[in-house]
């Protein structure tokens, strides 16, 4: 579980986050949602735990797996080497054990045959899946995902969402997902935190989001035409 209390952040004197408190539960998909520019990614990027001293920060960070918006795979390494990277740096596992773990993670994300490919040779969806494999290879306690399905087609987006959800339940990780995609919200939102202009306006589950009574959240949720039609019915 992650607890945050009165988180604030400013850039050049301009407050982008203020008074954010909340709890992100273990074994659940915790979503941070909101329009562009509301401070979602800033909140996720505060994973750096700036209050902790440097050694402490390093210890905490090694417990985190992170899926970046663009995948952030190392261009110069094969898919297999990308996934193996955290094990090479953070563990003292034997080469054979590392290969087994990488093979397991790649199989888990459905890319068992892509290990020898370079990132430039695979699709956007595959890059995201490799990113997920790299994020979970070290058995992290926390999985952070920054807009995991941005730039993907709807079908692939659903696959990625389902994969993140399955992994969260299977490995009992505390998962934080930043998104503004309502499909993701309705599909995987166990706990949802809604940010508006740097403030937390609402918190709850996907069952309650459509009748929250918060005007800004309603505007956000029903901006989607499909959701808007649902509302009409």
């Amino acid at each position: 579980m992650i607890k945050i209390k009165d988180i604030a952040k400013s850039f050049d004197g301009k407050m982008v986050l203020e008074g954010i408190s909340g709890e992100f539960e273990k074994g659940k998909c915790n979503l941070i949602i909101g329009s562009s520019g509301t401070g979602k990614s800033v909140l996720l990027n505060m994973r750096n735990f700036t209050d902790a001293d440097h050694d402490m920060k390093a210890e905490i960070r090694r417990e985190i797996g992170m899926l970046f918006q663009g995948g952030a795979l190392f261009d110069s390494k094969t898919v297999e080497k990308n996934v193996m990277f955290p094990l090479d740096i953070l563990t003292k596992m034997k080469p054979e054990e590392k290969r087994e773990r990488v093979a397991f993670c790649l199989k888990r994300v459905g890319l068992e045959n892509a290990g020898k490919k370079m990132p430039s040779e695979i699709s956007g969806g595959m890059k995201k899946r490799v990113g997920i494999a790299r994020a979970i290879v070290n058995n992290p306690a926390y999985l952070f995902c920054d807009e995991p399905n941005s730039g993907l087609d709807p079908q692939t987006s659903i696959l990625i969402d389902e994969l993140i959800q399955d992994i969260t339940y299977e490995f009992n990780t505390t998962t934080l997902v930043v998104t503004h995609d309502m499909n993701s919200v309705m599909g995987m939102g166990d706990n949802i935190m809604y940010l508006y202009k740097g403030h937390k306006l609402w918190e709850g589950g996907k069952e309650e989001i459509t009748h929250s009574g918060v005007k800004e959240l309603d505007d956000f949720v029903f901006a989607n035409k499909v959701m808007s039609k649902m509302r009409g019915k």
Partner: protein
Amino acid sequence: MIFFEKVGRYFVFLRLLVTNRESFKTYYYLVLEECVSIGLGSLFLVILVSTFIGAVSTVQTAYNLVSPLIPRYVIAQVVREMTVLELAPTIMALIYAGKVGSSMAGGLGTMRITEQIDAVEVMGINSVSYLVLPKIIASIIVYPLLVIIAAFCSLFGGYLIGAATGIITPPEYIYGLRFIFNDFSITFALIKSVAFAFLISSISSYKGFYTKGGALEVGIATTQGVTNSVIAILIADYLLAQLLLA
């Protein structure tokens, strides 16, 4: 004021290189990879450029030494001094900045904008030390070797063109190369090459590492990396000459 802020930031960057390092084994493989990449990648260009510089220096020196009172072997002596003191370490440094420095700045800049550096940092790794230190160590190892090769090729280029055109005979050329030779010139060239290698790799990496924005900014960072490296080389060249030769 901005200038001093940037210089200060550069020194903070240098300090980060040596704090919270990973294991020796990690750096060992990274440095080897960089040495191969930098060394082999630059070898052809260094050989080509230095051979031609030696050949041109020989022709131009001969063209200027028209007096019958000056023996022909002086041409080789002049080429030797020019090559060892300036052409091999300094001109090669300018070429090295253009080739390797730009590659370092561009590579790190691209890693920054595609969040690859963030991916390293999120694992609790000191990204400056992990990504940049191997490049600097590899440069300090490889660049002096490239300078030695460049010096040899330059002198050999002079020898070939002298023999081919009849400007100077091979025995005269060899005699000129050995005539009143001060071996401190070699030491001086190697000291310069280590200093230049450090400046090029650290300045280019610094510029690339702190790139902000997109592809356009990567291009700007690359250009700035090369430009600043070149300026630093020229200043360091003067300071070292003043310090060690004056």
